[in-house]
């Protein structure tokens, strides 16, 4: 009987730890919503979504999220535009071309790229990549979205290469043999058979990488600048949502002030974006799993 009680108690404790994760999500949504709600009592949603300036820390205050959003999307776009072709090429090379033993060594090595702290990447972008690029692009500002985006791209390469390679690896070998049996070259096999067959896994890897890029903070805070600007020019300083949150946190902002609440309004915008991306990727992944089960 004692044993029954003990088992029961242990099971409920373990359940409680699992439920705590739900509490974390509820906490995130509650904190962001409450503070954002207070923010929107003073600033209209319309202004937030349409004003083209973001200057909460100046005397002439504007609360338009668009400049931060454009900064976030611009740096992310550069990162993705760099990381997707490179990451995909790596995954195809490893699964279709490289010797088998190579796969086992190269994957953990590539994953080191994702293990490097982002503050280190920020330093890299600021002190190495930007000066290097300035040699080719004379007008390049000391802070810019180009080098921040490119370095962020390096960081997310392993997200794409590793997950895509897993997806390619999971394609049944019979498909590969069938393609070769028809006289395909490796390249034809890779792009006409393997990539389509592994497409959902590859799409998931790209979505996760986008989500990662949008939420990345330190690289852009260090190398892209802190000037909210509605622009698509990659050579000038911009500010991302995440960099703005860091900028405010570094200053001395009074708790409960409108400035304090801006970081939650910015935060909830960021959260909504990543939440949508993560949910899409989760759905695709679930569907994909069922197909193979």
């Amino acid at each position, binding site marked *: 009987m004692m044993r029954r009680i003990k*088992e029961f108690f242990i099971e409920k404790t373990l359940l409680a730890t699992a439920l705590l994760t739900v509490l974390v999500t509820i*906490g*995130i949504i509650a904190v962001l919503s409450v*503070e954002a709600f207070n923010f929107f009592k003073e600033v209209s949603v319309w202004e937030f979504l349409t004003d083209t300036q973001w200057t909460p820390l100046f005397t002439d205050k504007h609360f338009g999220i668009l400049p931060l959003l454009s900064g976030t999307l611009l740096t992310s776009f550069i990162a993705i535009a760099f990381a997707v072709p490179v990451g995909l090429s790596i995954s195809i090379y*490893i699964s279709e071309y*490289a010797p088998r033993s190579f796969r086992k060594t190269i994957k953990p090595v590539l994953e080191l790229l994702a293990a490097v702290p982002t*503050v280190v990447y920020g330093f890299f972008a600021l002190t190495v990549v930007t000066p290097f690029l300035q040699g080719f692009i004379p007008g390049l500002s000391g802070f810019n979205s180009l080098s921040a985006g490119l370095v962020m791209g390096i960081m997310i390469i392993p997200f794409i290469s590793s997950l895509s390679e897993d997806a390619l690896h999971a394609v049944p070998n019979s498909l590969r043999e069938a393609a070769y049996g028809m006289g395909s070259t490796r390249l034809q096999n890779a792009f006409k058979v393997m990539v389509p067959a592994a497409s959902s896994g590859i799409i998931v890897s790209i979505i996760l990488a986008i989500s990662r890029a949008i939420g990345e903070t330190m690289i852009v805070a260090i190398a892209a600048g802190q000037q909210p600007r509605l622009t698509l020019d990659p050579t000038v300083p911009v500010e991302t949502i995440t960099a703005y949150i860091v900028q405010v946190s*570094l200053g001395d902002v009074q708790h409960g002030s409108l400035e304090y609440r801006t970081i939650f309004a910015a935060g909830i915008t960021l959260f909504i974006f990543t*939440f949508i991306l993560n949910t899409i990727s989760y759905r695709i992944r679930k569907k994909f799993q069922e197909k193979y089960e």
Partner: protein
Amino acid sequence: MDQVFKYWGIFCTLLGLVLLAIFIGSILVDGVKRIDWEFITNLPSRKAENSGIYTALMGSVWVLVLTTIFALPIGIGAAIYLEEFSRKGKLSSILEVNISNLAGVPSVIYGLLGLEIFVRVMQMGSSVLAGSFTLALLILPIVIVSTREAIKAVPQSIRDASYAMGATKWQTVSMQLLPASFGGIMTGVILALSRAVGETAPLIVIGALAYVPFAPSSPMDDFSVLPIQIFNWISRPQEGFELNAAAGIIILLSITFIMNGIAVYLRNKWQKKLK
């Protein structure tokens, strides 16, 4: 064409690594001469050449230890529940979706959560404790996912044998599954902690400081950590601080790479044992 793509693939594979190597190389050249015993034991200072990383290093150690203490039991507990106790149903699918989503929440958002809940509502201030709680929540999904993978990898026959001997669920978990998956769990935990060591943004958001005159001596003290110290040095214009940043990065990268190395070693050893 086929050959062209092959070389292109090799080029891409090496591209990131070569860039990283060049960067580390250049940092090493700059920073290594700055590293001496005084750099490690000195307090931060206004003058670059007198500045050290002592307080930041101690802050990182404090945060790491406390984060482990909080995240480990909760993460492993949740993983055990999901793998061995929960039945397929609404609850388990909610938990599943939830954890997958948490893993994708940007770290800076965890900072906002910590700022409001730990720093303000629970009145911990910008203390080591608040920072550790924040990072513990941040790495929780990683710990859960990797622990589940490790438990899942234990052959079903072990469970069958244990249950057939009359063991209860908890006996089977604690006496068979956890020992058998220990290596895999540790691999995941170390990788998660190596991520925590490098985290900067959430700690800046909860108000960890760039300048702390003393190393923390209790969980309620103010603190800084290595990456924040590095960030602080990066953002100063004077030449000398950039050197400090490079030196700090060498120390931070060494810690990260050593942890990753241990994790890979443990994983290989464990996978061999499992077979």
